[in-house]
């Protein structure tokens, strides 16, 4: 019945493999370090590469699970944290906290980002309504993203520090580099909880395939479900954005692949979407390290370069299906 929670083993193995690769690659420098001084090798492994891999996994998992839940809730395959403005709302919240309120502790940043994500999601629900047409949802999301982006720029322009723009650039583009284990844990703990709690909602989300009325007749409280998803998404995305900045497209792409594994069921796609999201972000991070450009790319650029063409192909596919 609707509680099917099995995760395909190859998916689990793939995510685990990417996690190990993320620790091991590039191999030559690690090998050389271990040969010279094992303690230095361990330091690089535990203090540089482990937080990076953990962050990629949990951030990707949060985006995947939140995207899957949002898509199920809005009955729309284009609902995702970035296209609905949640990510940019979180970024705005963090920038205001850091540069205008001058509060830079991880907790303050996270609270600011969570508040920003909340604001964006409630604005979206107010603007687009609970079961939005694709056009309404995308337009409302676009408007919120644009507004949040403009306000972020404004906040940076008004910031007392003349280096605010330069400072914020790397972070706004999304980055997993040079985060400490403590920071990784700070994002990982709420993110992990959010993924598990979203996965618990899967019977209710699956029943939404039949529409909100039937879901209510089944005994699911839709208003409460909506509130849960908004709160959990804001918490998970907010905590990750506070540490790693805004990363796009993973929350859109991962649930779409996940539903292929669950034969179209949106609710039981939450956990597979989390694993796919984590795997995608681990893979994107490997690309940033291994791309032969002589320097590290911002990870948000990689996900956007891979994700945008996929998004466009979705739009074209929809146009064909609608026969226009």
């Amino acid at each position: 019945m609707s509680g099917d929670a099995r995760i395909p083993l190859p998916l689990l193995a793939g995510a685990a493999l990417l996690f190990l690769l993320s620790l091991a690659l590039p191999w030559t420098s690690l090998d050389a370090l271990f040969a010279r001084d094992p303690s230095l090798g361990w330091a690089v492994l535990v203090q540089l590469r482990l937080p990076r891999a953990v962050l990629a996994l949990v951030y990707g998992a949060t985006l995947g699970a939140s995207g899957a839940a949002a898509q199920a809730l809005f009955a729309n395959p284009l609902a995702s944290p970035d296209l609905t403005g949640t990510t940019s709302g979180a970024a705005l919240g963090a920038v205001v906290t850091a540069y205008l309120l001058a509060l830079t502790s991880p907790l303050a940043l996270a609270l600011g980002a969570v508040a920003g994500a909340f604001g964006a999601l409630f604005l979206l629900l107010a603007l687009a309504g609970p079961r939005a047409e694709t056009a309404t949802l995308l337009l409302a999301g676009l408007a919120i993203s644009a507004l949040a982006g403009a306000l972020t720029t404004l906040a940076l322009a008004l910031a007392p520090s003349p280096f605010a723009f330069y400072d914020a650039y790397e972070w706004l583009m999304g980055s997993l580099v040079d985060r400490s284990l403590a920071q990784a844990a700070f994002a990982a703990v709420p993110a992990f909880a959010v993924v598990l709690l979203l996965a618990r909602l899967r019977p209710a989300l699956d029943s939404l395939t039949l529409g909100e009325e039937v879901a209510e007749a089944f005994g699911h409280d839709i208003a409460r479900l909506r509130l849960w998803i908004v709160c959990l998404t804001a918490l998970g995305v907010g905590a990750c954005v506070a540490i790693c900045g805004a990363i796009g497209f993973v929350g859109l792409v991962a649930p779409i692949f996940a539903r292929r594994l669950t034969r179209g069921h949106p609710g039981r796609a939450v956990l597979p979407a989390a694993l796919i999201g984590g795997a995608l972000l681990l893979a994107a991070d490997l690309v940033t390290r291994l791309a032969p450009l002589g320097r590290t790319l911002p990870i948000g650029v990689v996900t956007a370069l891979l994700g945008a063409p996929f998004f466009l192909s979705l739009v074209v596919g929809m146009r064909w299906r609608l026969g226009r």
Partner: protein
Amino acid sequence: MSALLEAAGLALPGRLESTGLRAEGPGLLCLVGPNGSGKTSLLHALAGIGRPQGTVRIAGEAPEALAPAARRHLLAYLPASRDIAWPVSARDLVALGGDPEAPLAALGLAGLAERRVDRLSTGERSRVLIARALAQRPKLLLLDEPAANLDPAWQLKLMDLLRREAETALVVAAMHDLDLAGRFADRLIVMAGGRIAEDGEPRALLAGPRLAEVFGVERGAGGRWQLVSPKGDPRSSR
């Protein structure tokens, strides 16, 4: 023994006035009434959709006190909309209600079970959704226009199927086809203006004068339904 259905004080603001409904045992109860008369609202109130006022007891149990896993065996609801949000297969959709095989076969869908629901015709999709409601094996089966979109043969097969269900469950179906309702129902409820206007034996109700008042149609020559002529009957002037 408590009645199979006991509903009291059911109301949805602006749509359904305070309404009671009681059925001792299984049977087929058809709801008829003009557009906007409250058929769907009564079904919603019985299914607990849209935070209705009042109380519903099904075989003595309160549905709102049960978790979804238990509640699905108490009541099932088929909405008038045949929209399905995600392109799952017909079998997977029916399985959202319960074991899909028997309902799929009963609705002639065995050959279409693996087909995605967005690639079915509207009538086929209607049958899939009816099969989903049946798969719950509920005590109270609430159906909003189950015969809509079905071809004449399937309308009759559906009503036969509902008659069989009505041996063990209470089936409440909102219908527009008065002939179909009158022929198969054990009990007919006529809705008007958000409340129950008439409740009784179908043949007597369909032959009586109240139908002309509520619907503005009457039986003409050869038993065909026709619009009540403005001059004919003084009661039709309302």
